[in-house]
């Protein structure tokens, strides 16, 4: 890290001390032109990824999947099965890589932890009263600590959107900092819930706020509101992590979540990562997909590439 980024980093860490400083900084970020951002995202979506590039992309995408189930109906049996699948997504093909992580509610963490131990697959848990975050801070922090104690090494927190939209940036920042402390050595992913932030300017500001607060990852969505991850939103977030690293030297990961169902979708995201932030982020440590049905489509496409034929969906396990 250069001297300038070190000093920039300490200057930026001062911002959280005052509401005014935070506001001045966040509102001073360059605006995002909606039409232009959407056009750029659409252009990147027209890249044609074939043959060897496609095979490479599929394996990378599998390694980046946060295999997720966040339902009231989740059972220990179901999450154990999911964890087993995370370790060996394609039982018929040992060359198929394992996924990045399994993502479950805190109550399900102990069952998953048993299965994943020693596998290299991370265990993520949503916390902070996911998905709404509408509980007092002490409960959010207790929720977080419990998930870590049960064995989660990645915590997906939600930001306080009400405070953010009302312009109470310091409140949002303080909650992120407090959660950062509560997670200890675990990785912190900060869910912006971009579908509720409404504008790309807000997405950029919330991204910076999450990074300033100490998030290791910024994540688009909970998957529980109508609008989840989109390509333009992810583009704006990728630009934010790129600019943040240039300013501070610290690299932050990005996780689009919700609504990414097909291999084609996943490849569009990988192209966007490749051409926006480059190879440094093309790694499960720095880019993840929050998804459930995506994995089966990736496996189907992978089988198609290796065997030349499509097998029906019945050949892949439903979870």
């Amino acid at each position: 890290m250069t001297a300038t980024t070190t000093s920039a980093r300490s200057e930026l860490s001062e911002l959280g001390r005052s509401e005014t400083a935070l506001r001045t900084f966040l509102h001073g970020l360059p605006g995002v032109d909606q039409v232009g951002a959407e056009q750029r995202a659409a252009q990147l979506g027209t890249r044609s990824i074939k043959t060897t590039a496609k095979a490479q992309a599929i394996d990378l995408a599998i390694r980046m999947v946060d295999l997720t189930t966040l339902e009231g109906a989740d059972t220990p049996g179901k999450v154990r099965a999911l964890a087993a699948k995370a370790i060996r997504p394609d039982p018929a093909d040992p060359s198929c890589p394992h996924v990045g992580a399994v993502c479950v509610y805190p109550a399900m963490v102990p069952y998953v932890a048993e299965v994943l131990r020693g596998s290299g697959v991370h265990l993520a848990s949503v916390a902070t009263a996911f998905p709404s975050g509408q509980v007092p801070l002490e409960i959010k922090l207790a929720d977080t600590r419990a998930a870590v104690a049960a064995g989660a090494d990645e915590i997906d927190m939600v930001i306080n959107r009400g405070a953010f939209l009302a312009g109470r940036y310091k409140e949002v920042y303080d909650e992120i900092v407090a959660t950062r402390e509560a997670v200890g050595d675990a990785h912190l992913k900060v869910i912006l819930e971009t579908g509720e932030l409404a504008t790309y300017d807000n997405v950029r500001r919330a991204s910076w706020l999450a990074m300033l607060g100490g998030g290791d990852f910024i994540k688009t969505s909970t998957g529980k509101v109508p609008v989840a991850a989109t390509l333009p939103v992810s583009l704006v977030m990728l630009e934010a992590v790129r600019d943040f690293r240039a300013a501070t030297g610290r690299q932050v990961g990005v996780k689009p979540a919700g609504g990414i169902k097909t291999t084609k979708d996943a490849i569009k995201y990988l192209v966007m990562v490749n051409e926006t932030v480059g190879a440094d982020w093309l790694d499960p440590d720095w880019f993840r997909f929050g998804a459930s049905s995506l994995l089966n489509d990736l496996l189907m496409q992978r089988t198609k590439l290796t065997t030349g034929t499509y097998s029906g969906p019945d050949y892949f396990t439903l979870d």
Partner: protein
Amino acid sequence: MFEYAPAPESRSVVDLKPTYGLFIDGAFVDPTDGGSFKSINPASEEVLAEVAEAGAQDVERAVRAARKAYEKVWGPMSGRDRAKYLFRIARLIQERSRELAVLESLDNGKPIKESRDVDLPLVAAHFFYYAGWADKLEHAGFGADPKPIGVAAQVIPWNFPLLMLAWKIAPALAAGNTVVLKPAETTPLTALLFAEICQQAELPAGVVNIITGAGDTGRTLVEHPGVDKVAFTGSTDVGRAIARSVAGTRKKLTLELGGKAANIVFDDAPIDQAVEGIVNGIFFNQGHVCCAGSRLLVQENVADRVLESLKRRMAQLRVGDPLDKNTDIGAINSAAQLERIRELSDAGSAEGAERWSPPCELPDRGFWFAPTIFTGVTQAHRIAREEIFGPVLSVLTFRTPAEAVEKANNTPYGLSAGIWTDKGSRILWTADRLRAGVVWANTFNKFDPTSPFGGYKESGYGREGGRHGLEGYLNV
């Protein structure tokens, strides 16, 4: 690293003949007194086809065929029936768009994603748009019963072969004129495929005539006394010569000539999108665009930041095989154009501007030029004044909005300009003061058939596109 495997569009959709005649009076004919020339693929220098060169007698035949069709068939025809043919042509263009796009990329060198996603959709849209006007001319604002002019001689450039053809032919035919069109000598093939589409649409013979050849053929055509209207898109020098030759005749003239557009980036601009706009402004179509944003005027307090982002973005540009679907920048259209770009770029370095290109490997065969920017450029440099017509951007800085406007207008050209700012009021203030036919705000190189296009000063006169585009083809 994530390397994209080659993703070539198949060229088998194009059925190229080894030789092409002239399209006169509804049929392909051999030239009576002309020779022939070869059209090559600028990405590989392979010969694509041999094309007839029209001489004076061929021009005579073509103009006579157009005159006959104007007097006997097309002029008297009702607007509704003319529309029927134009709609039919538009639909055929859509149906055959893949074939046309591949041929356009082969003959011109532009990337397939551009001919597929920009050129062809716009070509079809122009025919659809003007087809709609054909039976509504009395509502166009040019009098109760506006009449066509007669026979139009149309000479078009090589940068957007089919799109320029559409810009010329669609309004001419909608208004009731017949045409003799000469495509550029380096890119005649899609015009000849368009001639086949006219046959397929059963367009009456002589309404559209396409004669191929170089400068001499074009000169003979525009100087022909049987022509009532001349429309030209191309260089300012040739435009001047045409204006001289037409002076004193009854011919009506529209010219769409060169440009040296300013793309102005203010300090409150959305930077990431502005960088996209700068890239699109100068590297779209290898910079072979008359309205290209070839001068970047960036406010000095954000210049470093914008340039850093721009260089990072330029490093992502993929230069190479025009038929690869992932290619962003294709081949330079001809050896002559490549020579001109090199000469002006060398002048830029010699005059003291700082040259930069991203690392990029260029193919061995064909005509290629890496995307290039020059910083430290002043108004006096040749690269800030002359149209380069290639992927070369001159970067200048400004301190105040007034200085930006002064620099933007300090050129003999006036075709287009771009403004990047988050402030609506600043967009309006700046646009009011720019002497350019088209001003884009927070975007660049956007085209639409409903929008008029044309220049100020040495960028020409007359408008193409929109309701305004009808005026050049009506006797008003």
